């Protein structure tokens, strides 16, 4: 596709339910990132994938959060037993992953609302 695609664009769930958020990066991009944007807050780094290397999970806020990337392309962010404080916009970004300090291409995000 032309850009980073995220689905769903909006997700409303009940507290305690599990949710899966999907990210389809730009073709050829080997680096993929998940960020979280809470109302009035900056972008909080969650996790980073680069090729076949072990992911950098240092930003995941709790063990309820996990992510995987299949075949070096599509990524899924899973939040188990959702809490109200998980409500935020979850943004995915990708880059070529060839050099340091590359431009990140962001998707439009998934707005998650936990009731």
């Amino acid at each position, binding site marked *: 596709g032309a850009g*980073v695609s995220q689905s769903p664009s909006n997700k409303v769930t009940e507290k305690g339910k599990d949710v899966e958020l999907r990210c389809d990066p730009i073709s050829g991009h080997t*680096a993929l*990132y998940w*960020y979280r944007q809470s109302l*009035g*807050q*900056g*972008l*909080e*780094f969650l996790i*980073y994938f*680069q090729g076949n290397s072990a992911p*950098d999970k240092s*930003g995941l806020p709790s063990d309820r959060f996990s992510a995987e990337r299949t075949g070096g392309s599509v990524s899924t962010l899973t939040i188990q037993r959702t809490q109200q404080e998980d409500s935020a916009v979850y*943004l995915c*970004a990708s*880059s070529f*992953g060839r050099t*340091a*300090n*590359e*431009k*990140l*291409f*962001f*998707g*439009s*995000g998934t707005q998650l609302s936990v009731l």
Partner: protein
Amino acid sequence: QQQVKQSPQSLIVQKGGISIINCAYENTAFDYFPWYQQFPGKGPALLIAIRPDVSEKKEGRFTISFNKSAKQFSLHIMDSQPGDSATYFCAASVAPGNTGKLIFGQGTTLQVKP
């Protein structure tokens, strides 16, 4: 030490005026400082970036000023236009071994009045 502090939180400027957004950091290992622009309902997009070996970078109406000794950098938008109304994020990262993991500021919501 990993924080990037951004101010102001919101800014209102008249059309044609200068918009100035400031950021400060503590980690002296940071050596890449991009600014991202985000319109409502969209993801952030890279606007302009600077490395600390220069004190200023200009692209069209957008200028980054960088003060390494003060550990501060700022975005100046000259001749601000209503179409510039958006949220702006400064960010920083460390180049050697950098994974592209950016540390973002809290964001500044800019409104340019016609």
